[in-house]
């Protein structure tokens, strides 16, 4: 019996690992063709992209900083997808999570970091979850379309934050719509400062302890979905709602639970941005991360660990494209968005559609 099952299990694992790589390569190859058409050498371009993302210590730090935010955002989308729900509201939940963290930092300004940082993280979780709760509640109790409500909540979040930052929380006596800088004790410690405290000198970059938090969150999310009864409920509702009714699982509550969890994860992305990098509340700090999270969450498929390589990929594209644009004046930010779009197209929308015969047999 085992002799029978082993090879096919090996194949299934190979498929789970190789398929996304294959999809991403397909996206990059098509991007390369388009770059060639506009007169950019695709090989040189990919070289400067990789160098820009991983070629020197500072670049690695920046890539990891982007990856942190994308991990939270991707995990958020992935968790909701397990329950069969499409959370488009990551952008707004990140914004509100950052607000929660920022409010705590402003209110407890000057208190020791050991107090401020955990409280601010809890506030980010609560604000993110609360922002997801309203669409979730409307879905569970009234059947409102989640896609519509979460998109609307993105706009609401942007409007609320603009008002808060221009009229309420703005630092007195300045024109820019942002709060005063928090005192250094309430910053999320960066790896640079942690290393220098240990007497090691590493390159200056915004990557901070939130990265560890993000990795823990991914591990926690994967454990929750795969190994707990609550996660089982999530997957039954996502896999077959009729079977959930049969098993006595309340699909409405599961939807609320899953989306609040998703909102909490997205909220933590706000911690990385607000407490780890900007050290103040500014306008538009989510900067589309909620939408990148959709691609990351879709690419991960069934396995939560897949969020990590997905986040790294998009972080590398985001950071590496800076060098790419410096090296190639023909490449502008819109072209970088196009490359991202092609990767999302092949790895998300066409996931597993293009495949090698050997991979297909393992299905």
């Amino acid at each position, binding site marked *: *019996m085992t002799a*029978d*099952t082993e090879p*096919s*299990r090996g194949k299934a694992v190979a498929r789970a690992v190789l398929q996304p790589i294959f999809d991403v390569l397909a996206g990059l190859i098509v991007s390369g063709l388009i770059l060639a058409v506009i007169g950019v050498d695709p090989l040189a371009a990919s070289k400067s992209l990789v160098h820009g993302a991983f070629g020197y210590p500072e670049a690695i730090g920046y890539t990891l900083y982007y990856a942190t935010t994308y991990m939270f955002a991707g995990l958020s989308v992935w968790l909701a997808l397990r329950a069969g729900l499409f959370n488009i509201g990551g952008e707004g939940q990140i914004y509100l999570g950052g607000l929660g963290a920022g409010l705590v930092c402003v209110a407890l300004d000057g208190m020791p970091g050991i107090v401020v940082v955990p409280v601010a993280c809890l506030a980010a979780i609560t604000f993110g979850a609360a922002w997801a709760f309203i669409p979730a509640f409307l879905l569970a109790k009234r059947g409102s379309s989640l896609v519509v409500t979460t998109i609307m909540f993105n706009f609401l979040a942007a409007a609320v934050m603009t008002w808060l930052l221009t009229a309420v929380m703005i630092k007195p006596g300045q024109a820019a719509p942002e709060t005063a800088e928090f005192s250094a004790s309430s910053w999320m410690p960066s790896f640079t400062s942690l290393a220098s405290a240990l007497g090691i000198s590493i390159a200056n970059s915004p990557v901070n302890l939130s990265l560890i938090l993000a990795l823990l969150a991914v591990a926690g999310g994967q454990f929750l979905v*795969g*190994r*707990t*009864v*609550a*996660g*089982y409920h999530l*997957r*039954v509702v996502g*896999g*077959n709602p*009729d*079977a959930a*009714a*049969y*098993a*006595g*699982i*309340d699909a409405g509550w599961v939807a609320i639970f899953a989306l609040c969890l998703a909102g909490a994860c997205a909220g933590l992305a706000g911690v990385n941005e607000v407490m780890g990098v900007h050290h103040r509340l500014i306008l538009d700090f989510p900067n589309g991360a909620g939408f990148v999270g959709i691609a990351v969450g879709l690419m991960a498929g069934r396995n939560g660990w897949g969020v990590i390589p997905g986040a790294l990929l998009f972080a590398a594209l985001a950071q590496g494209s800076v060098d790419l644009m410096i090296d190639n004046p023909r490449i502008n930010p819109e072209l970088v968005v196009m490359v991202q779009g092609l990767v999302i197209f092949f790895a998300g929308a066409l996931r597993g559609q293009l495949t090698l015969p050997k991979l297909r*047999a393992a299905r």
Partner: protein
Amino acid sequence: MSSPAALELIGIEKSFGSIHANRGISIKFAAGSIHGLIGENGAGKSTLMSIVFGMQQPDVGAIRIDGRTVDFPTPKAAITAGIGMVHQHFMLIDRCTVLENLLLGTENNFALGKALAYGRKRMAELAREYGLALPPDTRVRDLSIGERQSVEILKALYRDARILILDEPTSVLNAEQKERLFAILRTLRDAGKTVIFVSHKLSEIIALTDHVAVLRQGRMVGETATAETDEAALATIMIGGHVDLGRIGGAAEPGEILLEANGIAVCNPQGERKIDNLDLTLRRGEIVAIAGLAGSGQSELLQALAGILPIDRGRMSWRGQAMDLRNWRAKSLRALGIAHVPDEPRRFGLVADFSAAESAILGYHDCKPAARHGLLNPRAILADCNAAMNDFDVRPRRPDIRTGAMSGGNQQKLLLAREMRRDPELLLIGEPTQGVDIGAVAAIQARLADMRARGKGVLLVTSDLDQIRALADRILVMNSGAIVGELSPDQATDRELGLMMGGVTTKSRAQISG
């Protein structure tokens, strides 16, 4: 020399990984006859037919039509060559009309007008020729199951099929619809068509076919003229042993009342009242069967008793204790010892994307051995699934296989294992043997009889009247959401049951004669 066979398969071999589904099958199908193809689940019937219809390619072997070797890379090629297939699950678009469904794929023009006019003319011709009259402008969703199947047959004829394959066509039909289907198939045969009838119901094979071929474990193990064999002989070839079709198990010893329903009313999710003012008593040590024409409310009754559909009026009690209707929900019922095998297993009972092991704990996932303190225990879940698979002979014995990749019969066995192995006080069971092969049917029926012998209660809802007669101690007949009569198994002749299921009760007959 006789004329070549309408369809001939020569040495067909097909493997899927380590599973050898067809092993050198050679068979001839003559024009103007009805051929039965029988075999257990997984004997290779469906694989063979999907090869004939171009959905799969054989590893080795050839297909000949009228003596010419053909190659079917796609179903389209098979259709062009004159092969039509009626799938077990209909391939119709519910919201389109009969005519639109017929045309699908044959329109040929940008504008539909011409095709519609031609289709209407062809429909009238086909109706004349084969007695298959259907309303062209009715939407498929408004047709009965039997009529939908006729649409499928018409679709094949519309594409000039000369060879018609029907895959388990009677599994969704009631007795009356089945007779009508048989009449249609006989007309087609007399018109010179070749009909291939795939089934595992022996009585149908005997009643309908001219020739019969038996598959076992991917091989042809018998082929004969139907007139020269009988059910017992076929069953023996099919499973290689004798199958008893008589009364199963000992007599009932009705004990304590387990469940009592008084005047309950239930609506389906669309809000239509499906059950009104129904009374029901289930005791220990007896098997109570519900019989009825399809759509008489049996499914809804099963779902309501199992806590899926809410009961909105009436009284429910469990072992003498009155229950709040709001608490009569799936979640709390398992704790009372009520297990439920739904009559639509794929819809309610399993999650296609889960591994077999994960599907095998559904409903029991939050208690031991599957979970403790809210955490799943993968090792215990695997061990439980392995034991269940051994116990109920689920194949393949692989807890990690995707539930959706298992055959229907094995999914059903996994589901039965989950619900029966936990030794419930009361088992609510719908269509217990659907899709499972005849050898497993006997084992499942024996388990139900065993539950009765051990003083458990069973409510059996099935369209299989033979099964009801073999197992039930009391037969309740349902018609339009109410129980219209009760019979003992020896009173339950086809005639008596048929009349009651059609709503003609003893009382109303007495009134007519009196």
